[in-house]
């Protein structure tokens, strides 16, 4: 059986040791069952155990191993090695502070996510069992609820790079629409008020990098458009 090798160029930065970041080259031998980029990165840990990255479920559900792969954000665990041009350039998600190597500080990202109140708000008395939805109403949430908060979209959005403290970002706005669209939620007006701001929502210039990189093939731009439609409907 032939051994496959894969060449990497990996962003390295340890703030305790390095004055500035640098790219380091590696060559890794792959086994027959190594198909995804994460498999190769795990093998790379054997070559150099100081390389740091996040990972967890290894099947595109947890969103931990989001990184910039050959200039494009994606999840290492669902990216085929054979589809990538070598040497594979791996960098941390752009626009967020680097903690170490491929690990970024996602505080700002989650702060924006929390700012849209990502939960159903309903002040009416709770029913005995559960708040029911019709199948049609439930269908509205398809393409919204699947977001795994990997931050691939927000960190590929130039508007989020320039104003991460003020612009909610595509992931947060997708989640915002997920709750605006939810028929069980009664805070639609407050949610729209919260987003009616030149920074929070209207920094989106429909660049659509978010749609391009989403590993779950979701469409934050469409959700943002629907929020704007509702605002127009409310005003006109």
């Amino acid at each position, binding site marked *: 059986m032939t051994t496959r090798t894969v060449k990497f160029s990996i962003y390295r930065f340890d703030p305790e040791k390095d004055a500035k970041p640098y790219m380091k080259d590696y060559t890794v031998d792959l086994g027959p069952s190594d198909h995804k980029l994460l498999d190769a990165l795990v093998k790379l840990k054997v070559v150099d155990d100081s390389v740091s990255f996040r990972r967890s479920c290894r099947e595109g559900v947890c969103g931990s191993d989001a990184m910039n792969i050959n200039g494009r954000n994606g999840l290492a665990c669902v990216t085929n090695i054979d589809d990538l041009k070598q040497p594979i350039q791996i960098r941390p998600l752009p626009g967020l502070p680097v903690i170490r190597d491929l690990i970024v500080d996602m505080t700002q990202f989650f702060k924006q996510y929390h700012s849209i109140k990502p939960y159903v708000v309903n002040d009416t008395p709770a029913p005995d069992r559960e708040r029911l939805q019709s199948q049609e109403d439930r269908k509205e949430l398809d393409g919204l609820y699947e977001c795994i908060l990997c931050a691939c979209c927000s960190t590929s959005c130039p*508007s989020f790079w320039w104003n991460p403290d003020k612009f909610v970002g595509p992931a947060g706005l997708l989640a915002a629409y997920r709750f605006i669209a939810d028929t069980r939620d009664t805070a639609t007006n407050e949610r729209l008020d919260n987003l*009616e*701001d030149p920074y*929070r929502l*209207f*920094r989106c210039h429909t660049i659509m990098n978010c749609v391009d990189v989403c590993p779950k093939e979701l469409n934050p731009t469409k959700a943002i458009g629907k929020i*704007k439609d509702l605002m*127009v409907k409310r005003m006109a």
Partner: protein
Amino acid sequence: MVNRQVVGAHYGLRDWLVQRVTAVIMLVYAVGIVAFLLLASDAGYAAWQQLFSCTWVKVLTTVTVAALLWHAWVGLRDIWMDYVQPVGLRLTLHVLTILWLVASFIYSIHVVWGA
């Protein structure tokens, strides 16, 4: 002053709508001018002068210039908001932009409605 992050200006939709409406006005005017160019391809100075001597052409031109400048205001302010972080500098740029756009509008009135 405590360095608090403040958002919630409660505007943004109007500007976003204005940008779209003014774009449509400019498109309609541009189509009109292109149609004139095609229909009267041999038009000389006299024909153009005659066209722009009609009051309704002047009114439409002024409306389009106003739409263009309003559109430019929203777009330019977007650039300042995206890239200029210090509030003082950003406000200064906003004011300079407004002055330039207002001056351009006054000049356009002079050109379109002047003798």
